[in-house]
């Protein structure tokens, strides 16, 4: 009767070796290409032509860039807005637009600073019974290496009773200082930055960005795939934010809590609410 082995007495097997290469035919060693003297001369000529063309192309590009640089200039245009209007709309298509309520301003005015190689676009000012609309002329705005900065200044006393509408489109619109009756705006794929005061603030962005600071009676901030950033934001009555796939960072901790509350709706994005500590009843 066989007894079961307690230990395997067989010697250890060597590790498996990879299978040997198949014995196929070995490739023949490369042999130099034999060309006739005429063919060899032709190949050398072709290589020389290609090299010359490459150098010529590079030199042409440098020359064009240098010439364009020489043509770049800065130009400034100024235009008066109507002396009186009931609302102001600002568009930021292809330009950087800043809107300012100024205590020292005596009349509303727009100033365009253009930097580029072509001629500067005009300031587009339209006025009807709904109010005044200001932007940069042209359907596509200022593109390429050129840039345009449009500054709109409104007397502070006038701004305090004006509804302000912002349409950033693909550009950037900034409202800094002063106080406005009401601010509404859409960022599109651009950027809206507000650091001011208003009784009501209502901003939305598709893929753009909203930057918000200041003091507002109500604030309604919405973003689809864009982003909402706020700091030093004091909303006195009601603050609401809504994001789809975007992000919202609403910092309301610098002032008293909104008396009518805070609401945050988030689809698949993210929202961060920073609220004042209990007992905070004044800004600071």
């Amino acid at each position, binding site marked *: 009767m066989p007894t079961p082995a307690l230990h395997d007495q067989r010697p250890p097997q060597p590790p498996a070796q990879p299978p040997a290469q198949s014995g196929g035919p070995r490739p023949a060693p490369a042999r130099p290409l034999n060309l006739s003297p005429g063919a060899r001369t032709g190949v050398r000529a072709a290589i020389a032509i290609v090299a010359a063309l490459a150098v010529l192309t590079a030199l042409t590009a440098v020359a064009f860039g240098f010439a364009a640089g020489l043509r770049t200039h800065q130009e400034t245009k100024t235009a008066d807005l109507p002396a009186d209007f009931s609302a102001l709309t600002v568009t930021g298509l292809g330009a950087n637009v800043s809107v300012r309520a100024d205590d020292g301003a005596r009349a509303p005015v727009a100033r365009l600073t253009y930097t580029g190689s072509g001629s500067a676009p005009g300031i587009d000012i339209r006025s009807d019974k709904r109010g005044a609309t200001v932007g940069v002329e042209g359907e596509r705005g200022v593109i390429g290496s050129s840039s345009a900065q449009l500054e709109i200044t409104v007397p502070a006393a006038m701004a305090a009773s004006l509804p302000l509408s912002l349409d950033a489109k693909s550009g950037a619109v900034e409202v800094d200082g002063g106080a406005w009756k009401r601010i509404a705006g859409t960022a599109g794929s651009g950027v809206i930055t507000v650091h001011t005061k208003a009784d009501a603030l209502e901003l939305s962005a598709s893929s753009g960005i909203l930057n918000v600071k200041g003091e507002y009676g109500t604030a309604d901030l919405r973003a689809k795939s864009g982003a909402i950033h706020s700091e030093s934001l004091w909303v006195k009555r009601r603050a609401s934010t809504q994001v789809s796939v975007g992000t919202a960072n609403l910092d309301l*901790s610098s002032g008293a809590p909104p*008396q009518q*509350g805070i609401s945050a709706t988030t689809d698949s994005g*993210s929202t*961060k*609410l920073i*609220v004042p500590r209990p007992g905070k009843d004044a800004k600071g």
Partner: protein
Amino acid sequence: MNSSNGSGNVDIDIPRASSAGAAGIPIDIDNRSGETSVEYGQ
């Protein structure tokens, strides 16, 4: 505080007793499949 959450995540880092605020400030959160957090500022 009213908070509804779908398949996402809601993180409330303030005491629930005070989340409505001493003055009764309501906070309404509607979180579907995203992330929402609430915290005190400095």
